[in-house]
């Protein structure tokens, strides 16, 4: 085998391995397209927190939870064997366009903007962050019933879940790494990677760790400029 052929095969192997590693190893989760609208999952409120805010079922009714994902939770309201309505709470961080329909509405329910979509759906935008929706199923619900159901959600507790409404953490003294969500993102010169920033950037309300327990981070150096001159 000639020398150049050997080199060629060797290089081909190396290139193949690198490409394979990039596409099949855990790097895959770094590629865009993993989450809805490429919003990081940690920026979206977990569905588990939303479950307990659903209305309490009346006598003869039953609430069956059907989906619980990050930023979304859905339940069916059943009466006997019949499904009356789909109830859901979603975090609009992953669907910014859904906010637009609330801009022109004058209707309010407990001071939050209210919109009717078609003949069977009503939606409420709570704290500019959570969309609460009731969709009538089967024989359907009238507007009045849907609005009552919307009002039966624990809206005050839901509004309190909004990360940007949480009290800001105390300003730390000394060298501090910024919490994961606030660090400057690594900008790669890849085309089509522009992330759509949600309008209200949720501040990460994390209690800063004491310096002794902090993991050493390469990002600490970058943040030195943010420190108050002591």
């Amino acid at each position, binding site marked *: 085998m000639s020398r150049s052929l050997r080199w060629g095969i060797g290089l081909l192997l190396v290139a193949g391995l690198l490409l394979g590693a990039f596409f099949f190893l855990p790097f895959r989760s770094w590629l865009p397209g*993993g989450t809805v609208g490429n919003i990081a999952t940690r920026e979206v409120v977990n569905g588990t927190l939303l479950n307990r805010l659903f209305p309490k079922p009346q006598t003869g009714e039953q609430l069956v939870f059907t989906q619980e994902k990050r930023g979304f939770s859905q339940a069916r309201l059943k009466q006997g064997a019949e499904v009356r309505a789909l109830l859901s709470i979603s975090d609009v961080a992953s669907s910014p366009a859904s906010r637009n329909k609330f801009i022109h509405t004058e209707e309010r329910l407990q001071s939050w903007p209210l919109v009717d979509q078609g003949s069977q759906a009503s939606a409420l935008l709570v704290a500019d962050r959570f969309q609460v929706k009731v969709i009538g199923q089967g024989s359907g619900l009238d507007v009045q019933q849907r609005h009552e159901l919307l009002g039966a959600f624990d809206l005050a507790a839901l509004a309190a879940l909004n990360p940007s409404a949480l009290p800001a953490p105390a300003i730390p003294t000394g060298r501090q790494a910024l919490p994961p969500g606030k660090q400057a993102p690594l900008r790669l010169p890849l085309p089509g990677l522009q992330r759509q920033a949600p309008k209200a950037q949720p501040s990460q309300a994390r209690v800063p760790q004491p310096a002794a327990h902090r993991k050493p981070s390469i990002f600490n150096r970058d943040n030195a400029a943010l420190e108050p001159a002591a």
Partner: protein
Amino acid sequence: MSATVLERLERLPRRNLTVLALRGISTLVPGGWQNKTSPDELISDVLGSDDPELVQQVRARADELSRARHEGYRRALSLYDAVNRSQKAAGGLRVLANVAGALPLVKRLAELTPASQTLQAVDLSLKVAAEMLAFTQVNGLPGDSFAAFGDSLREYTGEARVRMAALVCFDALLPLGDNALHRLDGLLGQVGSRELHQLPSYAGMASLLPGRGDAAHLSFVRRGVDQWLGWADGFVGDLGLSGQRAVRALETTIGPWHGGMEQLATFLDAFTDTYSHTGVQAVARRLVERAAAEI
């Protein structure tokens, strides 16, 4: 880029053997079954309105959701596909064995194919496991919540009941006889990793099952089947399902059948995809319910 869930729904057949078999079996289930293959109809059914602009919005959102890898809707479909491939291959093997058994020269070949009852039991359990895994993918629960799966089975209504009736009839009652559900545990007890590997596309599903190694997979499958059996027993009793009734229900749509029940089951396995057909419809409905809530 593979197709989104709604595109898969649109490509489902409107009238073929699969649809006829399902229509036949749906006569046994109160509520019946409609072969919904149009995304727009499904959306306006969920939304209770056929405003074209709203339908368009829901569809765009559903496509966005099914393209996101973390959301699991497409992974649920790939589970159903893996099971479907396995069913076809196992059915094909048995058709081959039936044909080969009749020819003197290749009779030896027929003896090489695995015992069909064990194979059928494994096939059924893999389907149940896939049902459970797809349930956790779509509903967003951790991968081994057996109890939640058991509870959700009781909530299966309408189309989902037809789907389960098809599973019970085509994969348990017809091939294994009327006491199939009681024998299933015993049959699964005889299954080792050798039988598991004889199933042509266990390999396709192995990577999707939690745990490492055949033993872990097998115990996962058996725990899932335990949950399912507890429910299926009541289901069969409530609807009064039996092999005979299933054959009669099928005859109303696919025409008279003169062979045995086992041959009918083999035939259905090899030539229909009832499981993935209803699977795509079930996942599409869940996806649309979410998209309608998020627009």
